[in-house]
């Protein structure tokens, strides 16, 4: 059964107003450019977005911010975005800051059917306030709960019609976690390959995590901090 779709517009139309959306990417690296753009055009409202960062002013999740489509952002670092700061300061945007490793693990737990876990991360900090504490193996920990998405948007390098995906270099980041934690996962790929072409020993996201697969073209892949060797 092929999962290949041809219209980003139709795929993102499956996402309802008020949905919780998990979005892959780290900074602007490995973000699902095309699905985000389609969602910005669609104008879906009142979203809770879970993603490590929130794009920049005019790119990535910043496009959804600009349109005021996001009610709540769950992220580990949001420092690259002026619009974010404005909306946060005037109370339009709710923010839940989560330590990056805890965020990754909560999303992983959402995909893996682990409703909660204990971690030492954040003990003694504002993050621990109001959370259940427990000493396990001599270590003080706090309870963190899984995050599941009504939908997930991910970006892969290559994929096949069944939905098997592979990622490239550090563009992998949160994408496989998001793919597994979304009840309805829309994956965009740079290249659609024949079924059987991906080596079954080296598939990053097995097919069953993906519901829709689309091929994107002309990826911008913006770079936030281009650094090169000093001559």
């Amino acid at each position, binding site marked *: 059964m092929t999962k290949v779709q041809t219209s980003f517009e139709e795929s993102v139309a499956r996402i309802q107003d008020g949905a919780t959306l998990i979005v892959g990417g*780290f*900074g*602007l*690296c*490995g973000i699902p450019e095309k699905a985000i753009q389609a969602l910005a055009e669609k104008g879906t409202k009142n979203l809770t977005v879970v993603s*490590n960062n929130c794009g920049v002013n005019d790119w990535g999740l910043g496009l959804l911010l600009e349109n005021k489509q996001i009610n709540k952002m769950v*992220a*580990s*670092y*949001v*420092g690259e975005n002026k619009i974010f*700061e404005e909306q*946060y*300061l005037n109370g339009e945007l709710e*923010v839940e*800051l989560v*330590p*990056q*490793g*805890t*965020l*990754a*693990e909560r*999303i*992983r737990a959402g995909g893996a059917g682990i409703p909660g876990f204990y*971690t*030492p*991360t*954040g*003990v*003694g*900090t*504002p*993050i621990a306030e109001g959370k259940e504490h427990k000493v396990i193996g001599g270590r003080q920990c706090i309870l963190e709960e899984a995050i599941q998405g009504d939908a997930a948007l991910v970006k892969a*390098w290559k994929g096949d019609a069944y939905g098997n995906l592979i*990622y*490239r*270099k*550090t*563009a*992998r*980041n*949160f*994408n*496989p*976690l998001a793919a597994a934690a979304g009840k309805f996962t829309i994956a965009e790929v740079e290249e659609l390959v024949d079924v059987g072409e991906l080596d079954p020993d080296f598939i*990053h996201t097995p097919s069953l995590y993906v519901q829709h697969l689309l091929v994107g073209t002309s990826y911008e*892949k*913006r*770079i*936030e*901090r*281009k*650094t*090169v*060797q*000093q001559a």
Partner: protein
Amino acid sequence: MSSQRENIIQRAVKEVEDGTIVNLGIGMPTMIANYIPADKDIFLHSENGLLGIGPYPEEEDVDADLINAGKETVTVKQGGSFFDNAESFAMIRGGHIDLAILGGMEVSGQGDLANWMIPGKMVKGMGGAMDIVQGAKKVVIIMTHTNKEGESKIRTECALPLTGEKVVSRLITDMAVFDFTPSGMVLKEVLNGADVKTVEQYTEASFTIDEALIDREGKQ
């Protein structure tokens, strides 16, 4: 780069031991990579999903899919590997990183660290810092000894919200090196022409002085 920062980096790079796995925080710690001697076989870990950060790329090798945690374009060293963020923090939380070197805003005499938010200012987020300070086998903090007003950043108690409680193994400033032990903060070295008396003057937290240092510097 100010000579103060240069001095801190020069001292911090000595913490990097051959054959280890090291995570360098964003900013000043990242710059330590440039000072690691070529004969040391180090794997630098980047929390966005890379073990084995190589040097910055040549212009023609810049790859948008290959960045470090500071979102800078980098390269990958031979024998390196890529993985997802859950795996990356499994490495961190699971104690598989030998050394993390991070910047600090304040450190307390108990080894508490504050380095992520200033109340009243826009909060940008803690990124991976809270995970790293809990997970790395050794946590070294580098920071200037005092703030711009000349006040000690080494406090009896941190005034800023914490990143982690009792997580600092060693603190390196432009003036001194301290270790954090069950019996408190210990001055191990004085640096860059400072003497124990100066260090005492600019350090709010109380500390003891390492025996070896007393032998070298004399009791003040």
